[in-house]
């Protein structure tokens, strides 16, 4: 980040529009603002902070220029605006923050809360766009919590050199080197991992494996039963073929032809009856599947009784709809056509009715429920009747079947006892086949029932497996996310420690070299240390801690060395913007700092009084100054103007 231009508009004592260009020259990288006390150095410094971060204006009073307020009428709007143009990583950014206020009768200004902050970006190709997340982008360029180490009041920076400042030093290192970002990432990922672990615990069950095992077993059972069914069907078909053959032979034998015709007739009747019986059994099954309606008939009756009782007690619909009563109250005409007023008894009566009436939606719900209960009870009664009829029909068909079987058996016995040897033998064999057929058919029914049962089981298992699969996929996804979150957090923790230690050592070394260059008593101080506990120490030539005896100026130099060291180690492309940097320094330190400080940052912006930068210090800085301004406060207008000094 290199500051290019700053525009102030009605910002405090800067009335109207005032613009400055800041030096970006690599060699002449210093911009100096000269101003006596009260000229507006701190206001200008604050304007940059306010524009870029919306901060730094605390304690400087009203932002909007008093002169601008004076010149507008009561109720008119006044605007204050700061625009900072800067270059960052080859792209030009224009940050603009604007505040509006309305002049009040007492001359004060009512500020509007909606401060507008816009960040525009122009690429090297010239394409300009508005940055969607300006605060986020500013945090990526120079984070808000870091800017205080780059934009600072020189008189207040000795804090880092105080004995109790370890916490501040550690915070500064953490912020400038982005360790705080890494630390937050680590902690937040760990927190999310904890939540995911809890989710996973509630999902993990092994249910799917159990269901799949059951499904495998059920499908094997289905295959076995199917095989058994096929064998039985083949066996039955073979037996039926044998019986047909025997029947045909018996039909051809004259001695038993009449009996065989009788036998065929009964067999046909049996087939028809058995067909009827099969259809009836299916019908009974269908009716039985709705049997729950019969089972809950008592509960339905009870529910209906409760509704009726509540209706009688007036707790549910009174059959008077609220809307109807309201309409009567509104038009004040009785249903008989007689008008009434608010003082009449009729009006009071309708108000009473309104209390008893219920909203139409509730009434509709109650009526629907009553209707449904009644319909279910009717269906239950009908079902019971249908089941009784079907069961009676079943008994009748079974009776017919038994009688027909008995009649056919009688014929069979006659044929078996026939004097005709072949006919008798054939009848005997047919009887044996019939026994086998009955046995196999019974067995087939058993197998088919089992098959039906196992298929139902498989269908149910399929549903459960689909549900469990969904749950398991979620389980796998949660597991994967947990693994990512935990490993990310662990990895950040691991590199964070190493990176922090490496950077601490680099800052220590850099602080040492900068301090030796800046401090005039360089030989007296043998070392500068940044301890693992983040104590910034200066060691004298006797190997003792020299910090307790450091002067205010030396503490300022030590702090400046530390800040410059952090900036260079962090390799942050950011300017050093310093308000009154030399205020508390003696001439030796001023001269030394003026000579070296331009090398500590890519761009340096200094706000100085005429007293703090003069003589040799100014001479030392002069070759590096690329832009210079004087802030002139006019006591007649109470406004400051900015005059450019030719460099």
């Amino acid at each position, binding site marked *: 980040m290199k500051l290019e231009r700053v525009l102030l508009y009605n910002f405090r004592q800067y009335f109207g529009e005032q613009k400055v260009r800041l030096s970006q020259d690599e060699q002449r990288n210093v911009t100096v603002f000269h101003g006596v006390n009260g000229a507006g150095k701190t206001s200008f410094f604050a304007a940059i902070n306010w524009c870029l971060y919306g901060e730094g204006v605390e304690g400087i009073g009203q932002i909007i220029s008093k002169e601008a307020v004076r010149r507008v009428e009561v109720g008119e709007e006044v605007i204050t605006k700061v625009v900072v143009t800067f270059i960052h990583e080859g792209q030009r950014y224009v940050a603009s923050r604007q505040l509006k206020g309305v002049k009040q009768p007492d001359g004060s200004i009512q500020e509007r809360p909606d401060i507008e902050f816009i960040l525009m970006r122009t690429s090297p190709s010239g394409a300009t766009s508005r940055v969607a997340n300006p605060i986020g982008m500013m945090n*990526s360029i120079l984070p808000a919590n870091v800017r205080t180490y780059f934009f600072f009041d020189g008189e207040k920076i000795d804090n880092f050199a105080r004995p109790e400042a370890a916490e501040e030093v550690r915070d500064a290192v953490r912020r400038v080197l982005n360790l705080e970002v890494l630390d*937050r990432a680590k902690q937040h990922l760990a927190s999310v991992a904890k939540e*995911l672990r809890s989710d996973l615990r509630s999902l993990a069950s092994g249910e799917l494996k159990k269901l799949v095992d059951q499904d495998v077993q059920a499908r094997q059972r289905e295959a076995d039963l199917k095989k058994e069914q096929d064998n039985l069907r083949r066996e039955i078909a073979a037996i039926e073929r044998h019986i047909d053959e025997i029947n045909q032979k018996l039909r051809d034998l004259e001695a038993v032809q009449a009996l065989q015709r009788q036998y065929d007739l009964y067999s046909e009747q049996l087939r028809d009856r058995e067909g009827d019986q099969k259809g009836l059994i299916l019908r009974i099954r269908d009716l039985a599947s709705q049997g729950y309606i019969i089972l809950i008939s008592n509960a339905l009756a009870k529910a209906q009784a409760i509704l009726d009782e509540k209706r009688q007690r007036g707790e549910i619909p009174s059959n008077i709809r609220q809307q109807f009563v309201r309409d009567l109250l509104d038009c004040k005409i009785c249903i008989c056509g007689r008008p009434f007023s608010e003082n009449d008894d009729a009006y009071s009566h309708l108000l009473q009715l309104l209390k008893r009436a219920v909203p139409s939606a509730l009434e509709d719900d109650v009526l629907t429920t009553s209707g449904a209960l009644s319909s279910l009870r009717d269906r239950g009664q009908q079902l019971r009747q249908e089941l009784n009829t079907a069961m009676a029909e079943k008994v009748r068909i079974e009776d017919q079947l038994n009688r027909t079987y008995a009649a056919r058996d009688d014929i069979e016995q006659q044929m078996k006892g026939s004097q005709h040897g072949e006919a008798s033998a054939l009848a005997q064999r047919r009887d044996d086949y019939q026994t086998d057929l009955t046995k196999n058919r019974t067995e087939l029914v058993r197998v088919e029932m089992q098959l039906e049962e196992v298929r139902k089981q498989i269908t149910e298992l399929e549903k459960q497996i689909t549900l469990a699969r969904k749950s398991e996929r979620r389980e796998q996804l949660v597991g994967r*996310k947990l693994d*990512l*979150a935990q490993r990310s957090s662990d990895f950040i923790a691991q590199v964070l420690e190493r*990176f922090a230690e490496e950077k601490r050592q680099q800052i220590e070394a850099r602080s040492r070299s900068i301090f030796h260059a800046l401090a005039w008593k360089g030989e007296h101080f043998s070392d500068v240390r940044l301890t693992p506990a983040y104590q910034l120490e200066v060691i004298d030539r006797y190997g003792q801690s020299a910090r307790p005896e450091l002067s205010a100026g030396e503490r300022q130099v030590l702090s400046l060395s530390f800040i410059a060291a952090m900036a260079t180690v962090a*390799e942050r492309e950011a300017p050093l913007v310093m308000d009154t940097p030399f205020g508390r320094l003696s001439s030796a330190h001023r001269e030394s700092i003026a000579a070296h400080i331009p090398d500590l940052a890519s761009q340096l912006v200094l706000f100085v009084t005429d007293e703090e930068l003069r003589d040799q210090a100014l001479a030392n800085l002069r070759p590096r100054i690329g832009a210079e301004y004087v802030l002139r406060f006019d006591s007649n207008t109470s406004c400051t103007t900015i005059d450019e000094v030719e460099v």
Partner: protein
Amino acid sequence: MPNLQQQILALFAECDDDLRAVIVDVIRFEQENIHLREPRYKTLIMEILDRVARQSSEEETHEA
């Protein structure tokens, strides 16, 4: 010398692609919200994890 952002990203060069994708996005989020004392991080981090986990799962299925 690379800038700070590049130095930090280089720290994660050795992790696998999924881990790096998560870390880079979470760091970007934290960086953009560093001005907030308590950023609402859960939903966003969950979204990052979900996206990376699903993508990686799809890639595995595709490879298989």
